[in-house]
């Protein structure tokens, strides 16, 4: 098991646990950060042959619709790479504002926290 965390340009640490990449986003998702992060994440998945990705956004207090769509696109890209993406730890306040902004949530797999995310990922991988 590779538990070494990787320092990145976007300042979003990536680590692998149980064949799954965990990215914990603790910074504001500006466009540049998003783009840099996306490249780093996809590259990291390929390097480690991960079968699952958990985006932990519990540190994000503000997210607008563009940030969310960009995040969603990242999740779709992860899926195309053959890994199952899960969004974990969205805060109630963020959720309310996203819904009010009309965010589409259909294809997103979300979990309350990391534990739940792992459980959900196991379910998804078993499919």
């Amino acid at each position: 098991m590779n538990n070494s965390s990787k320092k990145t340009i976007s300042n979003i640490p990536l680590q692998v646990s149980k064949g799954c990449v965990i990215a914990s986003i603790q910074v504001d998702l500006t466009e540049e950060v998003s783009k840099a992060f996306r490249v780093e994440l996809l590259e990291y998945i390929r390097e480690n042959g991960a079968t699952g990705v958990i985006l932990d956004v519990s540190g994000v207090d503000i997210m607008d619709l563009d940030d969310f769509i960009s995040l969603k696109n990242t999740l779709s890209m992860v899926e195309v790479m053959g890994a199952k993406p899960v969004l974990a730890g969205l805060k109630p306040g963020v959720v309310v504002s996203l819904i009010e902004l009309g965010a589409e949530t259909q294809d997103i797999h979300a979990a309350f926290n990391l534990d739940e995310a792992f459980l959900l990922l196991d379910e998804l991988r078993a499919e």
Partner: protein
Amino acid sequence: MYGHSHYNQRSPEELLKLFSLDETDLESIRKLQAPLEERLDELVDNWYQWLKNLPEHEEFFTDPKLLEHVQKMQIKFWKIFFKAEVNDDFINMRKRMGETHARIGLPMDSFFAGVDHWLSLFIDMMGELKLKPEEYSQTRRAINKFLHMDMTIIVLSYEQLINETIAAQSKSLMEMSTPVTQIWNGILLLPVVGIIDSKRAQDIMNATLAKISETQARSFILDISGVAVVDTAVANHLIKITKATRLMGCESTISGVSPAIAQTIVELGIDVGTIKTTSNMKDALASAFNKMGLEINEIHE
């Protein structure tokens, strides 16, 4: 919400203009100040004689201390009235009076009847003053206009306070009406009764998301069997709520969808998409238990 009626925001000048009161009118009212001071006690007695025959007397004026206070306020009220000086102090005093009436719940009909009786007492008094006919009718008209303006201020503030009370009550009712309960580990239930408007939908969403983050629930059942009308707006609110809970990792089920509601939803062409719906709460609960890997069995002895 209803808080501020714009009428109450009118300045003294605007009020005078609205009731077309000019300085001549006010002056003719002021002329009555001196004769009134002489007769005021008599008039007050006279008025209370009239009041005694009304049922309101029993309700509001049985306490002698209170009665004394009310009489004092009345005397002050009419003295200020005949001073005929319309300024902010005047308006504020009248507003307070309206609020007091609203607080004690004085019915408007008895209030107006009382004011009207006062008016007739003043008119009798004017008769005794031996005014010239033109002066008499001019003064009478002036008093009428001024009194109506006065009543307007009082009634508007009465209305405002009552509306504020209603707004506060409906707010607390709204808050009481979103009891999200945890019925099992990881399962939340919210029965909705009544109407869902955007305010309430917002309350439901906030209450639900707060509860999800508190209990880490994975299933949420929204029971709408008590909801009278489901139209496009309500359906959109429900869809929003389910989307929101999904982002928190909690699956929503809408239970209690009656045949009538099912029909309207389809007829209105509302896309319920991936929302889970059941016709009764039992099914919703069963599927929630299933999701949690739980099963309910009878105990055989």
